[in-house]
């Protein structure tokens, strides 16, 4: 039986990411850097948002840096949605676990609109262009977690713990859903991906189990309410939790564009 295969796979990838961040400490040379910029098996990879901030802030274009940022954009375009958030981001792992706690405690029932992260993204880019300060690289909890693992700089983790705390107490996945500018960028990239979560209205029994597990319920609503054949692509984290719980197998993996 298909028992949470996707969640197990996802946890493995998330933990492997943390292991990769820690791997230089053991003397292994398969990975260096962190999620802002890295070298994986000799392949240079770069966070496209960090690239944009550097480009706007320092007004220097390094071609190899552009190529490695485009490689990452291409990768997440193919996977679609915010698959970075659901599979790779270490902060996403922490806030997911915090969200379980939140559900158990029954706190933080409010939700903030998703579109706030577009504004956060715009703010970061404007600040970078006007002041040359790479705002998200300064405040990024993802960078802080990466440096805490690779260099043991633990004090900045205070900000990460504030974020995790807010996710438990204030509102559902408030940082990840609504405030993270990197999530906002990947949502823009992922909405054009041909790889999507499909919906078969004829199978759906409207039990709403999928809504219970989905971290971004907004993406399921057009399908559940109006019978859209695909789940909204951009903000879906590709966690596949909806497919795992759906008793009617109404949610599928889908390629191409259907409305």
């Amino acid at each position, binding site marked *: 039986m298909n028992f949470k295969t996707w969640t197990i796979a996802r946890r493995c990838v998330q933990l492997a990411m943390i292991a990769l961040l820690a791997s230089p400490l053991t003397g292994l040379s398969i990975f260096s850097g962190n999620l802002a910029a890295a070298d994986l098996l000799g392949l240079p990879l770069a966070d496209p948002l960090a690239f944009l901030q550097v480009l706007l802030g320092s007004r220097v274009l390094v071609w190899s840096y552009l190529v490695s940022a485009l490689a990452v954009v291409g990768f997440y375009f193919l996977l679609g949605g915010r698959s970075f958030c659901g599979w790779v981001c270490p902060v996403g792992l922490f806030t997911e676990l915090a969200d379980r706690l939140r559900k158990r405690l029954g706190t933080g029932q409010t939700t903030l609109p998703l579109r706030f992260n577009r504004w956060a993204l715009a703010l970061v880019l404007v600040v970078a262009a006007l002041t040359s300060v*790479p705002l998200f690289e300064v405040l990024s909890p993802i960078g802080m977690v*990466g440096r805490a693992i690779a260099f043991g700089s633990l004090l900045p983790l205070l900000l990460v713990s504030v974020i995790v705390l807010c996710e438990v107490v204030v509102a559902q996945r408030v940082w990840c859903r609504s405030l993270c500018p990197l999530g906002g960028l990947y949502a823009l990239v992922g909405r054009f991906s041909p790889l999507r979560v499909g919906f078969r209205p004829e199978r759906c029994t409207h039990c709403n189990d999928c809504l219970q597990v989905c971290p971004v319920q907004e993406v399921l609503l057009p399908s559940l309410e109006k019978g859209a054949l695909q789940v909204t692509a951009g903000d879906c984290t590709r966690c596949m939790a909806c497919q795992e719980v759906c008793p009617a197998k109404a949610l599928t993996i889908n390629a191409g564009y259907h409305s």
Partner: protein
Amino acid sequence: MDDSSADSAISRRLFLKGSALSALVLALGGAAVSAVYLRSAQARDFYLRPPGALDEKRFLAACVKCGKCAQACPYRSIVMAGGEAGVGIGTPHIIARETPCYLCSDLPCVKACPSGALDKGLQEIEKITMGTAVIVDREGCLSIRGLRCEVCYRQCPLIDKAITIEPRHNVRTGEHTIMEPVIHKDKCVGCGICEKVCVREKSVIVVQKRVEKQEDFYEF
């Protein structure tokens, strides 16, 4: 009665949630604003950056804090700044008194930098411009006091270029020579080895912000 108290309890909960949420937004907004305006990494102290670093403002704009330069450094000279660096949080720097830059001829830190914060145009260690060594405590310098120390001179990777020994008569004893180490700022790359090896408890020679050469016509 009961109903109205239940109502007020709910609205109080909503109020608390609302205020907690605004606290989050305020905290994030405050952190963002302070990160922009408290440029302590620039304003406060001098940070000795790895070889090839752009000038400080552009360096802070271009560095993505990935730590690859620090991981590439074979001597672990490069350390990542913590929150005390303000907007420079997570940026690489060198604490010369602990571990200076040993000027690897292949510059692995510069090669590792993905974003251009360390300029790949830098090929030779003689062209590095990290800072300039300055004798900040002349009374503390054993060589200037007339003893035969000269450790900074001997250990300088650019010996007889960046640091030379200028002998002069020791007026105090009347019969000895003072072997004074003199730093030539157009040759000194700022690696910090002199700062590391100074035998005094507190180094009398430290790397400071590089002073650009002044163009002038006072030649004779």
